[in-house]
């Protein structure tokens, strides 16, 4: 919808000579307009002169500099002096928050910020206030942005044509020298960035604003402002080797690259020849590029002959994602976010994209504004609840993680009862519906309502809402990281099949990815049980192909996953560990246990960009490059492969990670020389059919889907039969459950939009730190009263694994008995509360929730 605001777009009607605003004048037949007549020019000039007369004359110090569109237009129209009496409309300068400076004296009332806020990111923090000369965009009660619902995504800031909105950047306040395209390295959305740099330093980040990106004109607070970590003094600048000089063994000495690579190759080969190839392991990174992950797992498999290779995405529910992949034959791999706005209905389960993957939440809220019914099920009321057609507040009783299963089965039963299943689809594409529907008919609705804490009426209304529609699912960490994630995913797949959704455009299963390349790392085989292209190790033909190509033998046995690596280190079976861009001392549960385990190793190499907790215990440190300092490609949660080139060179003596891995491979005896990124890419493109579209010149490509590995969005063509799985009741017995009297609260681990993952990088970002977040746990006021805890008190949160101290904030929307603990604060100390392993459920230990008690201090 065009909106008329500034009036600079005037044109002249050829016949009538009328001057009119081109943006809002409808086109009619036989219309003929002139855009550049002397009259039109005079009008434009006069409007602009009036705007300038109202504008403060502060161009010398204005950070918008030459990017100011007011200034550019004045130059184009030849306006120097306005010859008008200057009447600047001074407003208070607002810079209390660390992200956005608002100087509304410079506002030209174009309304772009308001439209960005309402139509693109759908937050509604600002709107026009007052009228006429006094009119300005304003928050509710005209307070600072930090007291409003603003999420500091900065979308308005990138759109502002003048200096009314500018970044609060104490390090740099002018126009960057140049701008280059890159892909954001935080969450799995993979936003396109325009990175501004001056003298090889990134000084400003804006959305790339290109139609071929996921985010187009939007970004989130991390993408916009948290890239400060690129310039922090915590960056690693040169290779270091630990010197074992008798008494003082804690000295790290700088070394040359040759020396460092020599030591790494030498020690790894030595350990392998002494203790066998199973005594070394490779922990890769869900943040590094596809090319790097490919090379990394190749070094592990082909050169050190071990399948002990994993990456950080193990923590984000890989078992659940693998199950989905396997059950649907990879059909769900491709799930463009564009589909959400075309969906018939969207079911959001255990996901808070407003914090974990903000750009996804923009898609969902826009879809809701367009009239797509949104069903939101969660145990904490999220921002999406206000946009939902049905909000399902899933109960958090002692066994609540099973509630999602009950909920999905219950809805399926109601839909079946209403004859709302897609019989044609079921017959054509699925197996096992008879058994499934028989199971559904025996479900007791009262029991479902009791287990989920959701009223029968609400369940009925939700079923009515979903009736006859294909459903798109959005699955978040509330499902992926919980104990019954696998069973819940089965229930999701069943519901998707029953409604004829899976495989249709606008009805995908979207898995929220917390890390930028967790999908790619898995695709590239940086996992213990699969080869590049998601080819399982146990599949002889796939494995043989790789054996031939790499001229090596690969064991069909899966290697150690991330947790098993720690356990093997504890037992002394693991001797050497190569860590690439991961920080297990911060991201894994029970950090003390991890620290003790890693201390038993003979040799640890850490390749990273920041001086992390894990770098401190390394024997050799290899400084790598951040995404903006190297080329490569990331694969996002949609299945979109995005290539990018370096924006600036790495700092100091740091090298791009693929270069480091390339020289290590050569040192370890790889006959292939990976002298350029192109070499690695060619190999991937030829050897991994899923990635045949990978190309440097084509910044956006899509992974190939399904058995036939076609790059075809109409996935139904693949004709694979998908089977229903039996109905599993939600009240699964987990045996050793802790008594609710000792640990009366359910703690839910939540992400906050200002941090990514465990907060290693965002914790080094100046502006994020300046915000001064304390990461308070949230508690219902009733529970506070019972425990005589007041808002703002400090408490000890104790679980069976450990304890942390935090301040308390009341949240009256939380159910009693539930608390939320934000991740990534205080060195991600919340991990102390979680158990690394669960004896009964080795596959899904459940890192979303745990039982805790609160002690007042």
């Amino acid at each position, binding site marked *: 919808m065009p909106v008329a605001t500034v009036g600079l777009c005037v044109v002249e009607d050829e016949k009538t000579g009328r001057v009119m605003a081109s943006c809002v004048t409808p086109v009619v037949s036989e219309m003929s307009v002139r855009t550049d007549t002397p009259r039109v020019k005079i009008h434009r000039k006069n409007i602009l002169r009036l705007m300038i007369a109202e504008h403060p004359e502060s161009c010398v110090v204005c950070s918008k500099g030459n990017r100011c569109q007011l200034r550019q237009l004045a130059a184009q129209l030849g306006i120097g002096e306005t010859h008008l009496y200057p009447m600047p409309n001074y407003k208070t300068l607002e810079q209390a928050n660390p992200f956005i400076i608002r100087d509304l004296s410079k506002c030209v009332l174009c309304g772009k910020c308001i439209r960005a806020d309402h139509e693109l990111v759908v937050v509604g923090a600002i709107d026009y206030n007052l009228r006429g000369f006094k009119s300005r965009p304003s*928050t509710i009660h005209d307070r600072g942005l930090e007291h409003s619902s603003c999420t500091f995504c900065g979308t308005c800031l990138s759109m502002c044509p003048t200096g009314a909105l500018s970044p609060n950047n104490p390090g740099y306040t002018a126009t960057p020298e140049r701008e280059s395209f890159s892909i954001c390295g935080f969450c799995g959305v993979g936003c396109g960035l325009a990175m501004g740099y001056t003298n090889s330093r990134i000084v400003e980040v804006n959305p790339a604003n290109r139609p071929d990106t996921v985010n187009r004109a939007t970004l989130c607070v991390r993408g916009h402002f948290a890239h400060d970590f690129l310039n922090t003094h915590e960056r690693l600048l040169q290779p270091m080797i630990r010197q074992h000089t008798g008494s003082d063994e804690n000295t790290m000495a700088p070394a040359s690259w040759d020396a460092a690579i020599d030591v790494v190759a030498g020690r790894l080969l030595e350990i392998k020849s002494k203790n066998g190839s199973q005594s070394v392991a490779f922990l890769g990174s869900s943040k590094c590029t596809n090319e790097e992950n490919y090379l990394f797992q190749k070094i592990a498999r082909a050169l050190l002959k071990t399948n002990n290779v994993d990456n950080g995405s193990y923590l984000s529910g890989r078992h659940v994602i693998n199950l989905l992949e396997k059950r649907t034959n990879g059909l769900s791999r491709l799930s463009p976010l564009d589909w959400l706005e075309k969906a018939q209905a969207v079911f959001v389960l255990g996901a808070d994209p407003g914090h974990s993957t903000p750009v996804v939440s923009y898609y969902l809220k826009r879809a809701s504004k367009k009239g797509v019914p949104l069903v939101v099920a969660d145990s904490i009321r999220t921002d999406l609840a206000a946009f939902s057609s049905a909000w399902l507040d899933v109960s958090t009783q002692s066994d609540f993680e099973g509630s999602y299963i009950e909920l999905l089965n219950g809805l399926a039963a109601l839909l079946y009862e209403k004859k709302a299943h897609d019989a044609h689809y079921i017959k054509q594409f699925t197996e096992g519906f008879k058994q499934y529907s028989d199971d559904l008919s025996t479900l007791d609705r009262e029991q479902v309502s009791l287990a989920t804490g959701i009223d029968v009426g609400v369940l009925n209304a939700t079923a009515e809402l979903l009736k006859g529609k294909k459903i798109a699912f959005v699955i978040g960490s509330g499902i992926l990281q919980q104990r019954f994630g696998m069973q819940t995913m089965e229930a999701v797949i069943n519901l998707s099949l029953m409604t004829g959704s899976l495989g249709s455009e606008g009805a995908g299963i979207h898995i929220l990815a917390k890390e930028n390349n967790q999908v790619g790392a898995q695709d590239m085989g940086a996992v213990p049980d699969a080869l590049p292209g998601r080819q399982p190790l146990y599949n002889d033909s796939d494995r043989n192909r790789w054996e031939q190509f790499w001229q090596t033998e690969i064991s069909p046995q899966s290697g150690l996953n991330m947790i098993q690596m720690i356990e093997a280190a504890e037992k002394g079976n693991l001797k050497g560990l190569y860590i690439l861009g991961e920080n297990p001392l911060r991201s894994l549960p029970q950090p003390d246990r991890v620290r003790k385990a890693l201390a038993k190793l003979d040799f640890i190499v850490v390749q990273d960009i920041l001086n992390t907790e894990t770098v401190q215990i390394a024997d050799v440190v290899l400084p790598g490059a951040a995404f903006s300092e190297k080329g490569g490609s990331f694969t996002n949660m949609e299945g979109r492969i995005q290539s990018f080139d370096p924006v600036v060179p790495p700092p100091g003596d740091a090298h791009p990670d693929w270069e480091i891995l390339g020289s290590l491979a050569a040192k370890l005896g790889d006959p292939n020389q990976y002298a350029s990124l192109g070499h690695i890419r060619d190999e991937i493109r030829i050897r991994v059919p899923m990635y045949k579209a990978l190309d440097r010149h084509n910044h956006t490509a899509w992974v190939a889907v399904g058995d036939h590995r076609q790059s075809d969005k109409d996935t139904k063509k693949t004709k694979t039969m998908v089977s229903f799985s039996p109905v599993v009741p939600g009240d699964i017995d987990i045996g050793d459950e802790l008594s609710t009297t000792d640990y009366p609260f359910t703690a839910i681990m939540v992400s906050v939009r200002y941090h990514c993952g465990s907060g290693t990088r965002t914790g080094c970002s100046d502006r994020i730190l300046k915000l001064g977040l304390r990461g308070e746990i949230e508690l219902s006021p009733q529970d506070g009263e019972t425990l005589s805890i007041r808002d703002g008190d400090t408490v000890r949160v104790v679980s069976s694994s450990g304890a942390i101290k935090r301040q308390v904030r009341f949240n009256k929307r939380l159910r009693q008995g539930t608390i939320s603990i934000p991740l990534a604060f205080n060195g991600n100390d919340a991990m102390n509360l979680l158990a690394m392993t669960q004896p009964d459920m080795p596959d899904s230990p459940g890192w979303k929730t745990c039982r805790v008690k609160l002690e007042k201090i």
Partner: protein
Amino acid sequence: MGPKEIDWNKLTAIIAKHKKEKWGLIPLLQEIQELIGYIPPEAIEPVAEALNIYPSEVQGVVTFYSGFSLHPKGKAVVKVCRGTACHVKGSRSILKLMKKELDLEEGETSPDYQFTLETVACLGACFLAPTMMVNRDYFGKLSPTKVTTVLGQYSKDKGEQ
């Protein structure tokens, strides 16, 4: 002496009546203004929630129309016409007298919430110039004596509503 107490029960009832209405914002605001005499800023958020729009949008509408006010007003709202016809007939002096009598500037409300003084561009009763309105009543062909008499009618001593 303060502004009229806000009857939150009644206010909540009005908001509930218009819940989820598609074009309900202005009628709803008018009802609130009618009940309380102004739109309490605290009511903006509940109104926005009921109509499923942003609080900032509600505030934008409230501050756009001069008929809505975010501040409590006096029992008697005096609107002196400053249109052309009234100006010719001496409304500037009327306004000056009014300011002196009430000890208020334009847009101000007396500390006892008895009077609010406002000006308007035209009341559409130019044949009666100079004119003014007090609440919903017109007073035309004003003279200094008439102004004092009218204000007397609305002063506190006269008691009732």
